[in-house]
């Protein structure tokens, strides 16, 4: 179990008690003791959660799509709505007809990331797996490899470099500044921001929820603190609802950006 639960469980410490400060949550909330380890390899809670998420996504889509029917059942209909949403509103909207080929990857990515995020508010899981940077970093690497490969496959080496760092319709003298920026931005910054955006959003959201949850407990004392405690609890509940939105939005943005990078790679030479 995560540190927040242990601190809640051992929380005999309340506001107003002598020599008892607020047990502020910190990085320890994101540091998990390995469940087991083999040499330098270890297995911890986010990894377990990511496996559960993978199983959940596969089980859901298996139940929905394994025996598809022309007239869909309820589950198939829900699956179709989700699939169609990612396919049409994200992939085809961004890449166009050529994006058809990348729909399976991006659909898988969307639902995988979304469920990793949702783990934040599932009881007992209560940790957004994407708040451990390794997970979004891995996925960002997949996106990076995909769009880099596509760029060089479509335009060749020189053409690919040109596609990555030679913007069109710019007067020559600006190129001195712009080309290095574009080069740096498209090759190095993109995967980094892609990973960090998802990570930081989920990290901050989780920290806020933990913060207000601990505060609700800490402030719960037979004094004015009880009032603060209940206010803090209300905020924690509100934040949980807000996080539900952020989780969806971050998955959406992640896949949307991946699509736009792929679209950029497939763009005709200019």
């Amino acid at each position: 179990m995560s540190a927040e639960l242990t601190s809640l469980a051992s929380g005999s410490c309340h506001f107003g008690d002598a020599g008892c400060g607020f047990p502020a949550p910190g990085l320890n909330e994101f540091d998990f003791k390995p469940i087991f380890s083999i040499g330098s390899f270890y297995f911890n809670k986010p990894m377990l959660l990511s496996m559960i998420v993978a199983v959940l996504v596969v089980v859901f889509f298996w139940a929905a799509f394994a025996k598809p029917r022309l007239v869909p059942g309820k589950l198939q209909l829900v699956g179709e709505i989700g699939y169609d949403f990612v396919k049409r509103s994200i992939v085809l909207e961004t890449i166009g007809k050529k994006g058809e080929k990348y729909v399976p990857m991006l659909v898988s990515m969307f639902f995988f990331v979304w469920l990793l995020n949702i783990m934040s508010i599932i009881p007992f899981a209560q940790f957004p797996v994407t708040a451990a940077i390794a997970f979004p970093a891995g996925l960002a690497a997949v996106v990076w490899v995909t769009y880099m490969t596509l760029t060089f496959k479509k335009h060749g080496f020189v053409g690919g470099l040109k596609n990555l760092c030679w913007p069109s319709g710019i007067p020559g003298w600006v190129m001195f500044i712009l080309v290095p920026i574009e080069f740096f931005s498209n090759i190095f910054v993109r995967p980094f921001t892609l990973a960090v955006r998802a990570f930081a959003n989920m990290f901050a959201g989780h920290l806020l929820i933990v913060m207000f949850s601990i505060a609700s407990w800490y402030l719960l004392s037979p004094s004015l603190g009880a009032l603060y405690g209940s206010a803090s609890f209300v905020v924690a509940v509100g934040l949980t609802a807000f996080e539900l939105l952020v989780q969806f939005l971050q998955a959406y943005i992640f896949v949307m950006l991946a699509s736009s990078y792929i679209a950029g790679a497939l763009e005709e030479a200019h």
Partner: protein
Amino acid sequence: MSMAIAQLAAEEKMNPLLPAWPEIIIGLLCFFIVFGLLGKKLLPSIEKVLSERRDAIEGGMERAEAAQAEAQALLEQYRAELAEARHEAARIVEQAREQGAAQLTEMREEGQRQREAIVAAGHAQIEADKKQATAALRQDVGSLATQLASRIVGESLEEHTRQSGVIDRFLDELEAKAAVAQGAAK
């Protein structure tokens, strides 16, 4: 918070921006399991059904359009036939009317002719009867007058008068007088 971080950093060097390789491996493994199953099996199968459904819907539309076109063609044909039938009917009625009119004129002429024939025959008959009657009357009047005169005179004049033609002359004179009177009257 910064205090807590410093405290933690002192306890254990943890950088949240440094990905841990076991986590990367497991994360990617999980993703590729999802991607593999969805991409190889589940999404193609649903895509197939979706396109079948699209075909079914579009096929239904096409069938409906074909049926509509056929109905339209039938309607056109029916209308054309109806117009032709009307035309034909009008033509037949016109012909019948012409024929009827022709027959009517013919019958009228025939009637006229028969009437004239009847009238002419009547006239001839009347003329003949009149002549006959006149002749008979002439004879009767003559004999009656002769008888009367014989009575008055007391002897038979019959033979004499018959031989002399007195009666005929008298009657002719009477007729002439009547003719003159008639002409004057006119």
